[in-house]
Every structure is written in structure tokens, then in C-alpha cells.
């Protein structure tokens, strides 16, 4: 009987932890079942290790149904015990005694991080994959019938098993005779990553796809993306809200993409050429357009054109299959597809095996990405907006490619990059937590993002109108007045977001 992931909890975090503990074995997957509240884990180990063998036994030979539920620190057990006083728990479901439930706090005590006691008597980390493996050890022994009745012996057994994974990960051993622990670990709680990312399984969110594309989470390109993200999260509460949503959406599917990319070099190459390198170039251009020269449009346009042309030349050498026109069309198709995912969540995750694209064409890669995203979750507003940015990027490359090596002023030349960027910025998704800002906080935020990102008054006008429409009835101050006095209201004069011609 099989192993399941509960879709009513935080299934993506569970999936990521399973990938980490089996060291990103591509033989791990999921299948949809008739019960929409869970998906079934499938596993064919690619090699034999103690940990992989254990997972194989749980998935393929266990006699009871074992269901893993990833929860956050607001979860309480039936008797009122908060999950953060146990970190995880394995138990028979009182309403279904044949079912073994594994529940664990994937947020690491809401970010405070769990600790346990090592063989040296000091506090050591208890990262999520280790926590999950510990609980699965209880489930395994309960299933095969050798779980000691004495709970101290059961803990000794699970902690000894846990040390097998700690060996694999190079983490210090746990003292199996000590069951002390709790919240508040000062050190790192990460595990050595196997997807080329950092922070696996700790609830932190990483650049999975970019790391896989460049083979390391430490690649300078990945570092650049992380810097941009972290700088904005620190600098602005509104930007922090936006990134939290964006990364939540991204984290839902990116571990699966990263694993597939690791298993399929041609897919890795296409993902890098279609998504990652353009994103890095796009971020660089967007940053430049908000730099010291932001008021000199002619210079910016020229710089952008030169940078895009240089990128185009390099890209055609690196990725000859990525013709700008077909890639632009593929991005548009993906953007449209994501627009259809904003309805209610599907009944359970429709996880299934997805065929990897083999023909190396942008449309096939975009379709594959769309399938992976669709199988994970609904509600991709922020990610869709990011794809619109990539669509803008590729449409400009397409236009430059069509122009040839020399601009043709008589044909009007390429469209304005700066205007297109502003149009895109004007459609940024609005954070749902916006009403939580008090009026003074909002003023500070508008000043900050107005100075650094939304520098054009027409963009601020559009955004001001959108904020007013969405939130005027949800705040307890005069939002219209605040926006007007801050220069965020007026007559909108901006065209719609980038659309494929």
C-alpha cells in the first residue's frame, strides 16, 4: 500500500522535502488518485542507498496507507497541542485507525527553527527533510510491526534511523538517548542541496530554476537575481508582499522543473535560453531604466537597443533553436495559458507524469512548463506578470531581429523600450495585504516605490486608480485623498500591458 501527500496541507513543501531526502532522485514522482484530498507518491530508486531503500519500502511495500501532511505552525493536534511543541507527529487517525498520519511543521516553528540534541550534547539543527524522515521512520516501523510499545525505545529507533539520513547529508548525529529540543536554533537549518539550490527543505525559497540552469546556487547570475529579490524585500513592505506571493507561486512548481532539468540536459539548455538568461538581461535593463539616467529617455532607448542587439547575437550562437519570433509566440501562449489558471483551485492537485519536451522547440518547452504549472496550483497572477515581462523582452528581440542590423527610421524604428517597460510596470499585481498598511506606512511606501520603480507619473496614475478601485472600501482612511496628495492619482494615460501583436 502506498505513501500519499495530503493536498489539504502544504503539499509542495512536502514534495520538496521528499526530493531532498532522496537526494533529488528522478525516480520520485506523484500520481493523481480518485480521492482529491491526496496524491500518491510513486518511486523507482535509481540506485540503492539506505535512505532510498527506506523510501522505496514506504512507497512500494508498506501494508498501510501512510499520508504525509505538511502544516504550518498554526496547526494544533486534536488535544490542543500546538505542532511547534512536537515539530512533527506520526499517529493512527482516530477516525480511520488503519491510516497512519504523518504531520510535520514545514515552516520550522514559523521560522524560529527547530533544534534537537547532538551526540556532543549541544543543540543541532533539525531541518525539514530530517524531521520528515524521522516521522517516516515511525510510520515504517508501525507498518512492519516492530514499533516498540515503549515510546523511549521507539524514539531511540527513529532517531537511530534519522542518523542514516544525517550521514547522507553530512549533518551531525543526533543523540538517540536524548529527546530534548524545541524552537529557537541560532545556526543554519539547511541541508546540502541536490537541485543546485540553497536552503532546501527549510521553508526558504530559492531560485530553483536559475540554479539548475547554471548548475549552482552560487553562480553569479543566480546571485544577481537573489540580490534583486532580497534588496526589494528589505527596502519596501509592498515589494516584500509582492515577492512573497510571487515566490509562493514559483515555489509551487519550480522544484519539479529543476529536477527535470537536472535529468534532461536539452531541457536545461532550453529553459536557460528561454527563461533564465532573458530574465537576467531583462532585470539588468529594467534596473538601468530606473538608474541615474532614468530621465534621459533617448540615452535609455539607445542603451536598451544596444544591449538587446548584443543579447540577440549572443543568444543566436548559444541557442540557435530559439528564433525570436517562435520564442515570443511561445511566451505569449504561456502567458495566455496562465491567464486561465485564476479560477478556483482544482479539486486536489492534478499531479501526474509529464512528458519532457524532446523536439527542442520553444512551443514544446512552453507547453511543458504550462503543464507543470497547471498540475501544481491555480492562481498565478504574479508569475503571469513576470512572464509578461519575458514576453515583452522576446517581442523586442523579435522586432530587432526583423529590423536587421540597421535601424530604419523611415519605418519608425523599433518601438520604445522605456514605454513598454512602463506599460508592464503599470500592470503589476496588487498585493492582497495592501489594506494592512496604515496610512502613514502607505505614504512611506508610495514615496519609496514611486522614487525607485514607478517613476513615470502616468504609471503612478494607473496604479493609483487600480488601488482605489480595489481597496478604497477596505481601509479606514481616505485612500483617494492620500493617493492624490502623494501624486498617485490623476488621469491615466497608459496603454494596456504588452500584448502580442
Amino acid at each position, binding site marked *: 500500500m502506498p505513501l500519499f501527500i495530503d493536498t489539504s496541507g502544504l503539499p509542495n513543501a512536502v514534495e520538496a522535502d521528499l526530493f531532498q531526502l532522496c537526494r533529488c532522485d528522478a525516480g520520485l514522482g506523484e500520481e493523481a488518485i480518485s480521492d482529491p484530498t491526496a496524491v500518491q507518491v510513486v518511486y523507482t530508486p535509481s540506485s540503492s542507498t539506505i535512505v532510498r531503500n527506506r523510501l522505496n519500502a514506504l512507497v512500494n511495500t508498506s501494508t498501510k496507507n501512510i499520508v504525509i501532511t505538511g*502544516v504550518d505552525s498554526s496547526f494544533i493536534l*486534536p488535544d490542543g497541542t500546538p505542532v511547534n511543541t512536537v515539530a512533527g507527529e506520526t499517529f493512527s487517525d482516530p477516525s480511520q485507525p488503519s491510516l497512519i498520519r504523518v504531520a510535520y511543521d514545514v515552516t520550522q516553528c514559523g521560522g524560529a527553527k527547530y533544534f534537537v540534541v547532538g551526540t556532543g550534547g549541544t543543540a543541532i539543527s533539525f531541518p525539514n527533510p530530517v524531521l520528515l524522515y524521522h516521522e517516516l521512520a515511525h510510520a515504517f516501523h508501525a507498518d512492519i510491526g516492530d514499533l516498540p510499545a515503549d515510546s523511549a525505545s521507539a524514539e531511540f529507533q527513529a532517531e537511530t534511523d534519522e542518523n542514516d539520513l544525517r550521514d547522507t547529508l553530512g549533518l551531525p548525529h543526533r543523540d538517540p538517548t536524548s529527546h530534548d529540543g524545541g524552537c529557537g536554533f541560532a545556526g543554519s537549518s539547511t541541508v546540502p542541496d541536490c537541485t543546485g539550490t540553497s536552503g532546501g527543505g527549510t521553508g526558504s525559497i530559492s531560485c530553483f530554476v536559475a540554479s539548475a540552469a547554471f548548475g549552482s546556487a552560487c553562480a553569479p547570475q543566480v546571485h544577481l537575481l537573489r540580490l534583486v529579490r532580497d534588496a526589494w524585500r528589505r527596502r519596501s513592505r509592498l515589494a516584500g508582499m509582492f515577492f512573497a506571493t510571487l515566490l509562493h507561486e514559483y515555489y509551487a512548481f519550480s522544484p519539479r522543473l529543476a529536477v527535470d532539468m537536472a535529468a534532461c540536459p536539452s531541457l536545461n539548455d532550453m529553459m536557460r535560453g528561454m527563461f533564465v538568461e532573458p530574465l537576467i538581461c531583462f532585470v539588468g535593463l529594467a534596473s538601468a531604466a530606473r538608474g541615474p539616467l532614468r530621465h534621459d529617455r533617448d540615452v535609455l532607448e539607445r542603451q536598451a537597443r544596444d544591449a538587446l542587439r548584443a543579447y540577440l547575437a549572443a543568444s543566436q550562437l548559444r541557442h540557435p533553436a530559439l528564433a525570436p519570433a517562435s520564442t515570443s509566440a511561445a511566451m505569449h501562449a504561456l502567458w495566455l495559458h496562465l491567464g486561465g489558471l485564476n479560477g478556483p483551485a482544482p479539486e486536489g492537485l492534478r499531479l501526474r507524469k509529464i512528458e519532457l519536451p524532446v523536439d527542442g522547440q520553444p512551443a514544446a518547452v512552453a507547453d511543458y512548463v504550462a503543464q507543470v504549472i497547471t498540475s501544481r496550483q491555480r492562481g498565478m497572477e504574479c508569475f503571469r506578470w513576470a512572464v509578461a515581462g519575458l514576453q515583452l523582452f522576446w517581442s523586442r528581440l523579435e522586432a530587432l531581429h526583423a529590423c536587421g542590423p540597421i535601424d530604419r527610421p523611415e519605418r519608425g524604428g523599433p518601438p520604445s523600450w522605456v514605454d513598454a517597460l512602463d506599460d508592464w510596470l503599470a500592470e503589476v499585481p496588487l498585493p492582497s495585504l495592501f489594506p494592512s498598511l496604515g496610512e502613514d506606512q502607505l505614504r512611506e511606501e508610495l514615496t519609496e516605490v514611486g522614487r525607485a520603480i514607478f517613476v513615470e507619473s502616468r504609471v503612478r496614475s494607473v496604479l493609483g486608480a487600480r488601488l482605489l478601485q480595489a481597496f478604497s472600501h477596505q481601509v479606514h482612511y481616505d485612500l483617494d485623498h492620500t493617493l492624490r496628495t502623494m501624486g498617485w492619482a490623476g488621469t491615466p494615460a497608459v496603454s494596456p500591458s504588452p500584448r502580442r501583436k
Partner: protein
Amino acid sequence: MADSLEIVDVGFELPGLAGAATGASRAAPAGSSDAATIALSATVTNRTAGTLYVISDVRTLDYDPASRRLVVGFSEPPGSPTHVPRHKFPPRIREVPAGESAVLSAAVPAVLNKMRPSSGLGMNIEPLDVRAAASLVVRVAFGDAPFRPEQAEPSPRMLLRLHDWARVVEKTTTLAADGPPPPAGSAGGKSKR
């Protein structure tokens, strides 16, 4: 209350992020720093002639939506357990000298997620928005000597010892006559009730 520990004051501050509202604790990114929490504090005074040792971390959380009663326990769940955790961490203990006071504080999730009976493979997780609480019961467990876990002590035995060790005091506070608390922003983002 002579010769005992007394809960002399209870503070209950609503989250500044009312917008994080309904169901957000499950929908929000795992570990999101924007998750709404309620800041709770309980001031206890030692009315005895000797030092008391008080549990200083939250060991019980429960909410009854029918009575709108929130229970926050710096103590183990009362009564005979319906489920004994396999490995509950030992409690944190704080020393309160004779005649002195201490403030116990906790961040209580604004929305608790409680497991309910389920007929499917997935759990039936019920979100409980405790911001609508009408009354708050704070329980504090304490003993005359420090409580220390023993080496290799199984969780059930530790919980049994805790039960024998602890005396429990409680204080019930009325939070609101009716209706949910006002949203944040109406009082500078925080409301002390």
C-alpha cells in the same frame, strides 16, 4: 490569591495585519513573516514565600467557535489525553522569585488550524479565526521546584511527571461583548483589548 501564583494581568493585542485575514495562514507562503499573530502576555506574580518555577512556553492552544472561547495554556492540555504526542519537547521553565512578577509572552496565530475527523486520505483541517474570541482563558502551570527532563525519558512519562509536578492557575478575560474585533488601521494598526 495568597500562597500561590497569581495571574495579575493579561494583554491581548490584535495583529497589525488584519488584511492577512481569513484563511490566509494556510494560503500564505510557508513561514511567511506576514502571517498574522496575536501578541499575548500574561503577568504573573509569585505570592508565596519561596521561588516558583513557571512554564513559559505555550503548550496548549484551543478555540471553541461556538462559545468563542480561546484557551492559551502555559500548561499541558487538561484532562485525560485523547492523543499523547510521541515526542513532545520539554517545557521551558522560568524562575519567579518570591514576591516578584514575570511577564510570559506568546505569539498566538490569528487563525488556528485544527485537525478534525476525516473520511478521506487528506486531513480535514478546520481554520479557527481566534480574532473573533469573546473570552480568553489563560492557564499557567508552575511548581515549587524546577522541572527537568530525564535522560532518554519517553514523552508519556515526561507528561505524566509534568502533570504531577504542576499546579495550574487560570484567569478568564472577557474580550468583547459581541462581533469580531475592528480591523487593523482603525487604531494605528493595533488594538489593545
